[in-house]
């Protein structure tokens, strides 16, 4: 189990940033040698995590939300295992304020490491309490009793008490102690099994799974209209014209530059939106830096510099026979691009605001919305309901805040606000563009001696975190909230430090405030950092005249890192690249402390139009103890394909006035004809703690593809995405 101390050490910068914002309980007050997961230390009461129901079933409460990662099944497996229950007798309640533990955000691949492990501890403590209760009642030593199937039995089976009989309507109480005895892993029967996610059957039966499917009695439908570009402000609304053109509107809400429309039926709301959109007049915001090379725009922005790592001396005098290397890499702004545009339902009823939201953090959202509306926090209730996959901080919080504003204007009715496709494409916070200047040196034997990286990035963390200013409508209101930029961002430097043994190293992170709205996108800075680092490693291997596998292994001492690389090599040992094809590999340990993952990409570059076709991706992953191997496989397959789409296709485009990537044609993502085949091999480590895995594939996939493209056609692409026009022969190195 990762100790709290290790957690603090490795993510200290991020933790401090959140503490300054007041969103975290004082983490430093937690005992550093406490073996319990951090979420459990924050919420130590047993009944915060687990309730025993009258019918002997167990209800598990998690502060995380289901976002397609299968967390509900994983936490149910944990409880079923410790309590010897069949999985179908464990019910899971997902994030809801006032109901489940406050686990802040469902983010950072931390749901298993935090929530599922907390449930494991709570269920083990429940088992001990139930055995003690039974021992007292039956007047036998607890050690002679057996607990299974919702009851405690004596060894001879003659006496037995169900959980309900033992508790007689009470709940288990007290804290989950730090000396709780967990079931030995070699006795596990449920954990580690590829059990099915029950919600998939509900999905195929078209059950109401998503917030979009909620139909509360009396629901009214809402649409909003957003400024066309950052900083644009509303000059006026022709409400009379609108009402004449589209009769039947219940409310037209205008507050500053925030415009919302309410109608009893959805089609009326849509017609009103579509009539009004081209007729709204906006003042222009500051011009966006279009028409210039974005890397150079970024380099010229004012930036605050933080030292990420320093050892040895990167400026030491050159030695005889050494080789030096210098390259610049770039990743553009990327979208989360959820398939379902953000949606929320809000009801303002008797002074209390109820919110149904697919936000990744119901507690921080509650605090932020309470401040936005000027309500006490206890008069805001937020319940997590799944939406379409989000892959980070998309429009979920913004749409919830906007629904809340509209519900306040129309109390007593549930307001369902559905963003349009364009709302999501134009107004979600993107993943920041990043720029990397790498300088490295090899000694005469081809060993890396110097690594100097200067990287540039906007923040990767602009979640509301309990404050209203980062909610999209907050800056549009007649009385706006001033946007406060996060001062520190651990996400920028994520995976910037190589795991390779290099004696002299300097990494500096330049934080700028860029032209577009940004926040957390799956893997944060790791995607760009690993793309640069692992492209650089391939270029350096070439300079050293070494095989890329051997070159990496020669600089790696971590046995688990070496093992996933060896496994990826084994997976592809019989794969031969055909004409115009290349194989490329890359490796990273996510956050330098979570899952280890190595990728091999097979890419064919069309000799006619230079399109890079990613044919196949293989990944070897070590995520420590695996709770549900099929869940891990599914997440990793998805990460590979999504990252491949980012790598070869995606880039947010903008002109001087606004973002031009407003739909799926102007922001294409992979379609079924293009996606590679994927294969995942799990390096199982049942004796190790589970490691966060959901974002591990992002960075290595990008570099593996770039490395494969280089072998396929001789062109080294250092600026993502890898579009055909960057692979024309004139781009080839001599």
């Amino acid at each position, binding site marked *: 189990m990762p100790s709290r101390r290790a957690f603090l050490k490795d993510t200290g910068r991020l933790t401090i940033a959140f503490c300054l914002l007041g969103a975290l309980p004082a983490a430093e007050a937690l005992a550093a040698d406490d073996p319990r997961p951090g979420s459990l230390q924050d919420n130590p009461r047993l009944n915060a995590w687990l309730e025993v129901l009258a019918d002997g079933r167990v209800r598990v409460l998690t502060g995380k939300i289901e976002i*397609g990662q299968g967390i509900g099944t994983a936490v149910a497996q944990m409880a079923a295992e410790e309590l010897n229950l069949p999985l179908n007798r464990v019910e899971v309640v997902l994030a809801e304020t006032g109901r489940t533990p406050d686990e802040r955000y469902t983010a950072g691949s931390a749901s298993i490491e935090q929530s599922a492990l907390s449930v494991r501890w709570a269920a083990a403590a429940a088992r001990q309490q139930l055995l003690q209760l039974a021992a007292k009642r039956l007047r036998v030593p607890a050690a002679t009793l057996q607990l299974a199937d919702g009851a405690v039995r004596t060894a001879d089976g003659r006496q037995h008490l169900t959980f309900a009989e033992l508790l007689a309507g009470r709940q288990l109480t007290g804290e989950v102690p730090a000396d709780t005895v967990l079931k030995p892993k070699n006795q596990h029967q449920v954990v580690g099994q590829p059990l099915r996610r029950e919600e998939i059957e509900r999905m195929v039966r078209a059950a109401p799974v998503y917030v979009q499917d909620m139909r509360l009695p009396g629901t009214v439908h809402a649409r909003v209209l957003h400024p066309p570009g950052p900083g644009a402000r509303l000059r006026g609304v022709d409400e009379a014209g609108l009402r004449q053109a589209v009769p039947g509107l219940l409310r037209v809400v205008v507050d500053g530059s925030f415009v919302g429309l309410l109608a009893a039926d959805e089609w009326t709301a849509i017609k009103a939106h579509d009539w009004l959109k081209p007729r709204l007049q906006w003042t222009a915001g500051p011009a966006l830096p279009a028409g210039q090379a974005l890397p150079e725009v970024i380099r010229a922005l004012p930036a605050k510099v933080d030292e990420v790592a320093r050892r040895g001396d990167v400026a030491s005098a050159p030695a005889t026979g050494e080789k030096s290397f210098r390259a610049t890499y770039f990743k553009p702004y990327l979208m989360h691009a959820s398939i379902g545009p953000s949606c929320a339902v809000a009801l303002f009823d008797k002074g209390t605001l109820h919110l149904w939201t697919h936000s990744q953090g119901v507690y921080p959202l509650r605090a932020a919305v309470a401040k936005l509306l000027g309500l006490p926090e206890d008069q805001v209730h937020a319940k997590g309901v799944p939406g379409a996959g989000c892959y980070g901080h998309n429009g979920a919080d913004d749409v919830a805040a906007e629904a809340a504003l509209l519900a306040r204007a129309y109390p007593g009715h549930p307001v369902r606000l559905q963003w349009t496709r364009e709302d999501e494409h134009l107004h979600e916070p993107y993943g920041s563009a990043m720029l990397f200047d790498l300088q490295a040196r090899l000694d005469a034997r081809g060993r890396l001696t110097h690594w100097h990286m200067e990287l540039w990035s906007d923040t990767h963390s602009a979640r509301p975190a309990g404050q209203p200013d980062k909610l999209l409508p907050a800056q549009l209101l007649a009385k706006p909230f001033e946007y406060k930029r996060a001062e520190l961002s651990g996400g920028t430097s994520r995976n910037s430090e190589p795991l390779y043994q290099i004696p002299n190293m300097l990494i500096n992170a330049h934080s700028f405030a860029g032209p577009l709205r940004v926040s957390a996108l799956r893997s944060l800075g790791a995607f760009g950092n690993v793309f640069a680092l692992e492209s650089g490693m391939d270029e350096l291997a070439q300079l050293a005249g070494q095989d890329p596998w051997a070159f990496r292994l020669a600089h790696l001492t971590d046995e688990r890192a070496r093992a996933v690389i060896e496994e990826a090599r084994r997976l592809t040992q019989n794969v031969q690249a055909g004409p115009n094809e290349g194989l490329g590999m890359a490796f990273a340990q996510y956050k330098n402390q979570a899952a280890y993952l190595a990728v091999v990409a097979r890419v064919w570059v069309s000799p006619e139009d230079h399109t890079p076709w990613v044919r196949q991706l293989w990944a070897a992953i070590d995520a420590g103890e695996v709770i549900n191997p099929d869940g891990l496989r599914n997440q990793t397959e998805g990460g590979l394909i999504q990252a491949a789409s980012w790598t070869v296709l995606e880039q947010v485009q903008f002109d001087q006035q606004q973002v031009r990537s407003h739909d*799926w044609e102007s922001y294409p993502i992979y379609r079924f004809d293009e996606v590679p085949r994927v294969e995942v091999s799990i390096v199982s480590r049942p004796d190790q703690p589970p490691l966060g895995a959901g974002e591990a594939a992002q960075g290595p996939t990008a570099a593996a593809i770039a490395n494969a493209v280089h072998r396929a056609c001789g062109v080294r692409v250092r600026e993502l995405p890898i579009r055909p026009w960057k692979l024309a022969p004139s781009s080839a190195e001599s």
Partner: protein
Amino acid sequence: MEATTFTLHVNGRPHQVQADPATPLLYVLRNQLGLNGPKFGCGMQQCGACMVLVDGFAHPSCQLQVHRVGAAPITTLEGLTRPDGSLHPVQQALVELQAAQCGYCLNGVAMCAAGLLRQYARPDEQTIRNALFRVLCRCGTHERYIRAVQRAAELGASG
């Protein structure tokens, strides 16, 4: 436009609805018939989330105006489930292969697959990819979806 009465044939049953004739079928199915299968994704026929079968052919419902549907039979994801509650081979295969992450695009995949298997009992991989071309998936579940359609073809052939 004035609301008009239409008789839609959805999942094997006639339904009388009153709607502005220009209303896209999607909103009638979701809001008047209370169906969850077809989903709003883009409203521009670009993503396939709203896919239904019209006369057995997979077609997006987000721009199909209700007055243009006529008497054509409409099948939604709900309608793939048999009256006895058992699952269509496509639904069975999706569950068996655990082919979903967030599942928001699952409707589009299932409806395109059902339409495909009506025409081609044993499609090859390229045919499957072509049939699913109109559906966007952001979680990266494509590999499993393709395998699930292959599995559905096997189940359909044996069942």
